[in-house]
């Protein structure tokens, strides 16, 4: 009979868990409806979707990132299967979150900027849904242009992302709601996308008329398929003649004469060349680029006023497609801007022009240093960098940049010329590729393997220990044991090398960061043998020891809890412990503690911490009492009141202290430091 309440309690808990699972599990067949962001303007947008049942479409939206309430818009027409809800009264260049009616999921989109404010889009040349989603989410572009057309039977790679960005193709909207683009059925030989003061025109075939420029846009970017302009493309002998004979060029010139402030002066010829080549014909710049099929899987297209650049997301160098017109003499600042936009080759060329034309300019030393530095740190052209650093040192030895140049010359000349290719390969991985792969652990592992290959292939090069040290340092965050192996390898294979001199210290730090304090302490102990590291190693060893002690204390605390709780539990089941009033007293104590803590709430970092730290003492005092009283009675016997009281108080205090230590150890170690533990 005594077990009935216990069985009832267990049954209640099980029933509650089952009910919670039934209520919270996803509804069977409740697949989410994914809307499409169809048309987005500076102050309006339209959301479309289809339903299996006829309903009246409704969209709830609000500005994202705070700053406004929710607005509900219902579609004006009667219930149906196809829904398109226009949202109006929006602000330019603002992100909005929206959901369909009472749908659970919120989606978002961003309105076009007003005027010619900066924005960027993605040009995607892939049919892999996973990759497409990852790119769109990580970059959050204003819109997407899909160069890869849909293939029958393949999954739609844009199915999910259409709820967040409008998707276009060179032949029209890339939308299942409106009908997917069909190059054969395209009514016009061109298609335009208007966005933020820009018009992107895709020209496919034949001779488009000047109507393709019928737009209030301030800037035009024309992308033309190979074949529209015959001949060899920009840079070939007869290119100007070939261009002048096309309807495209005539249309461009006609537009430019009528609109001198809004000229279409920039055309990308797709499929003309593997390498970028530019040629100006009648003040229209034609740039050759590879064909759409050969384009990278994804490119970011940045538009910032007259500046247009492409940025491959694989970390390779960006390319400036279109530069703002240089109305006056080139300055160092403009050259620097090119470098900041990732156009290193162009920046070096501009700096070199600047140096040639401004030999006595006060910024020439800046320019010389910049050329050398870009060659050194961005293009990894060490012989070139040395030449330019040397020019700076020879001609401007009193420049403020001369010491830096000397430092770099010293660094580069540390290596033989034969080492330069290895150095370039290593620096490219270290500075560019590894940093670009920060979200891709597999890619990072591959790059680390590449560095290992470099080390093994060039084991006798002075670069080998440098590369090995870097590799070990990176592994420390990914695989501590592998990192330690590499640090040991460094010590054994390159003893006496400066890179190996603090290997024990590095091993200690690796173990410490991995929470393996015993190994860390031992490694710091070995590091103490190196006189210049002794002080730091001793301090780190002491830190490790403190952590070991805390860990041991926590183990001991668990043991105490187990030793009091388990027999206490058995004893409590056999004989009655403190009564209901005791529970009520501790409950009152807990409430008072919470209230007291609330009065000084700014002392706690969160509400969870406040509740945890204020309730724990009362809770553990209560549990200690509940468990220790019957246990003490079993141990000391009820006939010896003094022994009973001492045993009860002792066991209760022991339980309380152990439990409180564990709470502090696991939830807020700050207080352990305060108590000198």
């Amino acid at each position: 009979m005594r077990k009935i309440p216990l069985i009832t309690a267990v049954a209640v808990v099980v029933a509650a868990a089952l009910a919670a699972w039934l209520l919270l599990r996803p509804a069977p067949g409740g697949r989410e409806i994914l809307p499409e962001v169809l048309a987005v303007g500076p102050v309006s947008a339209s959301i479309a979707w289809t339903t299996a049942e006829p309903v009246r479409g409704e969209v709830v939206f609000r500005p994202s990132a705070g700053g406004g309430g929710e607005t509900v818009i219902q579609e004006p027409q009667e219930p149906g299967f196809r829904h398109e809800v226009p949202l109006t009264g929006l602000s330019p260049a603002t992100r909005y979150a929206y959901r369909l009616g009472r749908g659970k999921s919120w989606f978002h989109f961003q309105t076009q900027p007003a005027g010619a404010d900066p924005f960027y889009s993605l040009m995607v040349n892939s049919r892999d849904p996973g990759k497409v989603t990852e790119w769109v989410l990580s970059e959050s572009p204003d819109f997407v242009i899909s160069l890869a057309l849909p293939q029958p039977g393949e999954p739609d790679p844009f199915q999910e992302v259409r709820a967040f960005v409008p998707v276009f193709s060179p032949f029209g909207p890339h939308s299942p709601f409106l009908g997917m683009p069909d190059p054969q059925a395209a009514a016009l030989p061109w298609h335009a996308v208007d966005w933020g003061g820009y018009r992107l025109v895709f020209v496919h075939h034949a001779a488009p008329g000047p109507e393709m420029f019928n737009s209030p846009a301030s800037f035009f970017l024309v992308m033309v398929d190979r074949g529209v302009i015959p001949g060899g493309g920009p840079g070939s002998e007869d290119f100007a003649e070939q261009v002048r004979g096309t309807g495209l060029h005539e249309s461009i010139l006609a537009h430019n004469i009528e609109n001198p402030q809004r000229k279409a002066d920039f055309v990308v010829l797709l499929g003309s060349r593997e390498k970028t080549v530019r040629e100006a014909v009648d003040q229209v710049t034609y740039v050759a680029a590879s064909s759409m099929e050969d384009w990278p899987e994804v490119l970011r297209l940045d538009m910032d006023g007259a500046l247009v650049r492409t940025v491959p997301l694989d970390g390779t160098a960006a390319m400036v497609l279109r530069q703002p017109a240089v109305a006056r003499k080139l300055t160092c600042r403009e050259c620097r801007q090119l470098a900041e936009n990732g156009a290193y080759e162009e920046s070096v060329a501009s700096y070199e022009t600047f140096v040639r034309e401004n030999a006595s300019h006060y910024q020439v030393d800046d320019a010389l240093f910049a050329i050398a530095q870009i060659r050194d740190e961005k293009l990894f052209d060490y012989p070139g960098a040395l030449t330019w650093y040397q020019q700076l040192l020879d001609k401007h030895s009193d420049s403020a940049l001369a010491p830096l140049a000397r430092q770099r010359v010293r660094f580069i000349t540390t290596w033989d010329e034969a080492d330069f290719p290895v150095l370039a390969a290593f620096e490219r991985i270290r500075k560019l590729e590894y940093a670009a792969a920060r979200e891709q652990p597999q890619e990072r592992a591959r790059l680390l393997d590449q560095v290992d290959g470099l080390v093994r292939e060039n084991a006798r090069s002075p670069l080998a220990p440098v590369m090995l040290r870097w590799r070990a340092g990176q592994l420390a965050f990914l695989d501590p044991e592998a990192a330690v192996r590499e640090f040991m390898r460094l010590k054994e294979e390159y003893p006496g090398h400066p890179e190996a001199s603090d290997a024990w210290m590095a091993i200690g730090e690796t173990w410490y960061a991995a929470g393996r304090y015993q190994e860390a302490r031992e490694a710091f102990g070995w590091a103490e043998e190196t006189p210049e590291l002794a002080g730091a190693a001793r301090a780190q060893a002491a830190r490790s020891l403190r952590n070991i002690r805390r860990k041991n204390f926590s183990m001991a605390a668990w043991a105490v809890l187990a030793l009091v709780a388990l027999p206490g539990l058995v004893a409590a089941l056999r004989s009655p412990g403190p009564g209901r009033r005791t529970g009520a007293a501790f409950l009152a104590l807990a409430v008072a503690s919470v209230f007291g803590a609330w009065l000084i709430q700014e002392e706690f970092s969160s509400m969870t911490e406040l509740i945890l730290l204020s309730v724990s003492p009362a809770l553990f005092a209560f549990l200690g009492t509940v468990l220790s009283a019957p246990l003490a009675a079993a141990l000391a016997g009820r006939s010896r009141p003094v022994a009973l009281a001492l045993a009860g108080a002792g066991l209760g205090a022991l339980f309380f202290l152990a439990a409180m230590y564990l709470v502090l150890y696991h939830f807020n170690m700050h207080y352990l430091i305060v108590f000198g533990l």
Partner: protein
Amino acid sequence: MKKFWILLLPLTLLFACSGDKGLEAIREGASAQVAIERLRKESPPSWAVIQAEYEKTLPMVLAADQKWGTNYEKEIPLALALCQEGTDVEVNQQVLAKGLQHAAVLGIRDNLAMVREDKHAAARATAYFEGIRPTFVRRDKDYFAPDKPLEQTADRALTALAEDGEGIGTWTAARELLDVMDRTYALCVLYELQSVEKLRDDDRAECAVKMKEAEVFWRIIAPRVKKTSSKAYETIAAMLGADYGAVDAKAAKEALSQGLSGIQLL
């Protein structure tokens, strides 16, 4: 009743034993970060205690340095050492306080990037957020009182992240959190520059502190601004690198608005 309490014990122990160890370290770091904010404002601050608290934030700092190429593992101890010896204490402690905020923001960004693949990512982002919450509270008070759009939006996004798990709605929640963080730190940069404008004729020492604060806050949002508009990036970077006389809060506001496309700053 007694048996109910006895039943509660193993459940409590089970609860105490369970959980993500990484999450606990983040919570500890966030809690230490808040403690550092409080401790450094004491008069005089106990730099030894602050040092002990800083050590708890090390995993966060190291992770940021490793993944994002920041250098706080060296910058912060140096700043702490300078504070301990009394050199430019007001300026140097900004490196500690704001540097930790930067590391926390990077931690949140990392976790938001994997929120659909890793079920603990939302909890980790929330734990990191506790370390930077006071900044949201301050900027709400400075610019929007009695409303609290920054803190409320962040809380709404964190709740949505926790509730939606692997659903598609997490994308919007993650984006909203990223946006509101950038908005808050852009307002921090603006606030410090506005302060420099007010103080530059009377209190140049305080201006140095404000500029240092603006500089570290700027690091948090600079990549996004640079990606969107190199002109906006250069405007702010030049302002922060020049003399106090070159600070123009109005131009800074315009540049920040332009560089943070999608966000309404004020």
